[in-house]
């Protein structure tokens, strides 16, 4: 990874929840400017925790960063408030939607622009852009978010982050609960923003195939450690990745129906 | 190590009633200090310990239990709180510690045969209620004139406010005035509807049986409803500076009962000179010397010191007396005029003379009126109500208590 100086870098971070649960055991990763980096890993590997560490949202969940540091645009950010981070252009889409249930979809989107002090018309333009990306949201714009469907909420959460016009977005499982067509569209949007507006992305994703298809680099997290990293293309050629993350073994893709045994993944590191 | 007479003071100086508490206990401690400065009671100095109860029964009980065993054992206790007093009532006889309830608590406790360790000194609520009616009757020009009059009893809706009802009801029957009972839900910070009702009823007198912030609100609300304050007569818990000062001019003309004649007394001068000028006063604000609560505290302390003196006469001068002996002292108190003169409080409190039958010892009160700046006594003489009536009630009520508790009434030795 020498193409660009790291825009965001996480250095050897260790995180403990509730004073006793050690979750991240020295995670380091870099996101170069203008690149898309995928963070892969099984359930509970610590992807969300890594993202929350970067966005300093960990504090509210009784998690502590006990070691390491995070730098964004060359400055340490681990002591900043999330608000300050958003101002500096770093936004996060949290896992599990987290829409403001009592606000309408449109109000939800507008809160996304809280840090921007722009004119009404610019705001309107941003709003239009989000509606352009997610037409479904336009239809539901005046319903309370709490009453919209799961997928609609997910779109709302992503749209809300876009409203801040960030230069770097942390996406936590954007594809969860989204219809396949829209998933493609979301990643299309990611690519679009990336290439047209030079927005960098760090995305935690379970849908490995699509994530590696759009990402430039990838990190694989296991049990709170980075066990593999590399260019997305290299990763997707790796036999282990193919088998355990992409579901294609030597003999090609197998039907879900025919998985006769629970397969146990080989662990890279214990 | 000279002997010390230790007294337990479960006091309250924070919370809703802090204003009263700090004045009352301030007065007590000021007088104790004064006595100690002049060498104590026949050489026996007084020691005391305070404990914050916040006027809360359960904390009060804890305080009592904590204080009672200290310094060789408490020989007297005064919580100035009905709830706390009830909480420790049953424990007193076991612990052999007398408790005074100066101007509050159950009126029937004046019967020493049933409540040997309880002393509702000076006056009980019942005698006070009787005295209030007496005063109102005199004001009207004779008790007979009360017939057909309307008297409102505006009361704190609690045990305290309901205590005088039997007396008032009996008297209303006897003298033929109409008694209108209007309760105020504690803490009583809103009384618009009550005062509208009062205005509607057009009473001749309003008895304000209030406590704490309820009083100021009552006076203020009377003013906003244009009800003359001259027609309002407060119980003594509604007759302190704390009740009238915050109302500003609204309280001008309002009168209330008291068992201390307002004014200046030699003992107050001494307190001012020997304590406050020397920086040893207990209250933060010297302006409160001689205020109603302070005076009441001083009076309480005087009665206790006199009880000590009396007990020492019998059980040995210059010696620390026990709780039982203190009890005897309280039961054989005689603070007459000459004694008062000697102490420098002549006229400040009525003559107090107790016996086994009468733990109250007086029952006399005065009426004071607020002139916008201070209280002034408006009855030159001490008023005593229909004591025969209150005695009857007292006998009945304490007999019922004795039966319930399986106590055989008898005088303690």
């Amino acid at each position, binding site marked *: 990874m020498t193409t660009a100086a790291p825009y965001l870098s996480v250095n050897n971070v260790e995180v403990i929840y509730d004073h006793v649960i050690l979750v991240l055991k020295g995670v380091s990763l870099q996101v170069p400017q203008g690149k898309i980096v995928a963070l892969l890993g099984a359930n509970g590997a610590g992807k969300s925790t890594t993202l929350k560490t970067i*966005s300093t*949202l960990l*504090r*509210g*969940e009784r998690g502590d960063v006990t070691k390491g540091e995070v730098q964004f645009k060359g400055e340490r950010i681990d002591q900043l*408030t*999330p*608000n300050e981070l*958003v*101002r500096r252009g770093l*936004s996060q*889409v*949290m896992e599990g939607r*987290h829409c*403001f*249930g*009592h*606000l309408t979809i449109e*109000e939800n989107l507008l*809160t*996304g622009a*809280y*840090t921007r002090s722009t004119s009404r018309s610019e705001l309107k333009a941003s709003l239009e852009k989000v509606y352009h990306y997610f037409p479904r949201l336009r239809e539901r714009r005046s319903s309370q978010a*709490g*009453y919209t469907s799961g997928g609609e909420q997910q779109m709302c959460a992503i749209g809300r*982050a876009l409203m*801040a016009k960030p230069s770097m977005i942390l996406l936590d499982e954007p594809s969860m609960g989204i219809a396949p067509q829209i998933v493609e569209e979301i990643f299309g949007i990611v690519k679009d923003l990336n290439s047209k507006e030079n927005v960098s992305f760090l995305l935690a994703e379970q849908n490995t195939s699509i994530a590696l298809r759009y990402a430039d680099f990838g990190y694989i997290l296991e049990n709170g450690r980075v066990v593999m990293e590399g260019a997305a293309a290299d990763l997707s050629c790796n036999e282990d990745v193919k088998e355990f993350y992409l579901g294609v073994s030597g003999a090609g893709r197998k039907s879900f129906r025919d998985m006769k045994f629970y397969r146990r993944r080989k662990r890279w590191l214990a | 190590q000279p002997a010390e007479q230790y007294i337990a003071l479960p006091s309250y100086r*924070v919370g*809703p*009633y*802090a*204003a009263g508490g*700090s004045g009352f206990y301030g007065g007590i401690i000021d007088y104790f200090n004064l006595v100690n400065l002049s060498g104590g009671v026949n050489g026996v100095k007084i020691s005391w310990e305070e404990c914050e109860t916040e006027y809360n029964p359960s904390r009060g009980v804890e305080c009592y239990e904590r204080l009672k065993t200290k310094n060789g054992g408490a020989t007297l206790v005064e919580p100035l709180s009905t709830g706390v007093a009830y909480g420790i009532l049953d424990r007193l006889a076991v612990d052999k510690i007398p408790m005074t309830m100066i101007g509050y608590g159950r009126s029937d406790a004046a019967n020493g045969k049933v409540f040997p360790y309880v002393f509702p000194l000076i006056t009980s609520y019942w005698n006070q209620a009787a005295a209030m009616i007496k005063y109102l009757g005199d004001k009207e020009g004779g008790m007979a004139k009360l017939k057909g009059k309307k008297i409102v009893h505006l009361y704190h*809706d609690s045990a305290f406010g309901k205590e005088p009802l039997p007396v008032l009801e009996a008297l209303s029957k006897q003298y033929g005035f109409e008694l209108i*009972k*209007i309760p*105020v839900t*504690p*803490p009583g*910070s*809103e009384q*618009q*509807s009550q005062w509208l*009702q009062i*205005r509607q009823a057009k009473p001749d007198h309003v008895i304000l049986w209030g406590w704490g*912030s309820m009083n*100021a609100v009552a006076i*203020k609300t009377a*003013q*906003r*409803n*244009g009800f003359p304050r001259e027609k309002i007569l407060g119980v003594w818990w509604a007759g302190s500076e704390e*009740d009238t*000062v*915050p*109302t500003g001019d*609204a309280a001008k003309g309002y009168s209330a009962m008291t068992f201390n004649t307002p004014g200046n007394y030699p003992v107050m001068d001494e307190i001012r000179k020997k304590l406050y000028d020397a920086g040893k006063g207990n209250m*933060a*604000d010297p302006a*409160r010397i001689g205020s109603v609560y302070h005076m009441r505290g001083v009076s309480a302390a005087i009665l206790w010191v006199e009880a000590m003196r009396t007990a020492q006469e019998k059980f040995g001068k210059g010696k620390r007396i026990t709780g039982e002996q203190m009890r005897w002292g309280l039961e054989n108190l005689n603070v007459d005029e000459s004694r008062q003169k000697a102490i420098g409080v002549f006229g400040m409190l009525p003559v107090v003379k107790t016996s086994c039958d009468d733990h109250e010892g007086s029952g006399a009160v005065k009426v004071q009126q607020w002139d916008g700046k201070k209280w002034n006594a408006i009855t030159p003489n001490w008023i005593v109500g229909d004591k025969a009536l209150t005695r009857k009630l007292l006998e009945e009520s304490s007999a019922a208590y004795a039966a319930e508790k399986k106590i055989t009434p008898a005088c303690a030795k």
Partner: protein
Amino acid sequence: MFMNFFFEVLIGGLLSGVMYALVAIGFVLIYKASGVFNFAQGAMVYFAALTCVGVMDKLGVSLWIALPITVAVMIVLGLAIERVVLRPLVNQPEITLFMATIGLAFFIEGLAQLMFGAQVRKLELPIEDVPWQYLMDHYNILVSQFDIMAAAVCGLLVTSLALLFSKTKIGRALRAVADDHQAALAVGIPLQRIWAVLWAVAGIVALVAGLLWGARNGVQFALTFVALKALPVLILGGFTSMPGAIVGGLIIGASEKLAEVYIGPMVGGGIEGWFPYVLALLFLLVRPEGLFGEKIIRRI
């Protein structure tokens, strides 16, 4: 005559209701911003009023000088509360924050009395609490001029706060915070700053309430209890609504007075303590979120 009395009770009740609303507004402010019931509001009312008269006393200055000093103190208090109490408790369960405000209440009560003593004090505002002669003479209806002023002040406060919060960015942000602290942080809402500002504003509202209630009842510890009067108002009007506080206040004020006067004597009186609660409770059975409160979203 009968009707006249009825109207007097009604008007008296409505005006008392305004006084309740004044206290309720403080609660609404904090509830809106954090979804938490601020137990310390009563203590803040007391603190503010006591500080004001305390400053007048100790420095010997007039009300007009003491007032800005007190405002400054309340702002500092708000900032300190955010910094010391709330910031470490972001994203904690509501009941935890609620408890923290209880701790805060103790602290503030202690602090107030420590600084200025526990005596009951007089507070005189330039307007007297006497019947308005004009109404008295012309309509034979009794309304205190003080109450009219209180109503005006209250109306002003509510209108300005309601305007501030209704359509602006801040209003939206507040509702967002109340829904989900974590997500609010994630979209860049400066939670800390908003809380600090709101607590400061709540402090000032407490000051206004403290001055009016204090002028009426004397500045004393019992001011902390006026919160109890505001509670039924809150549940009736909805915890999140400024107009709700006013409307709720009027309804509660009027109905409790009417009940006390017309029903009270039948059952021994003193029903004012619980009647508003029962009324509000019955009302909640129909609308569980109060008159103007936000509907509770229950969905799966």
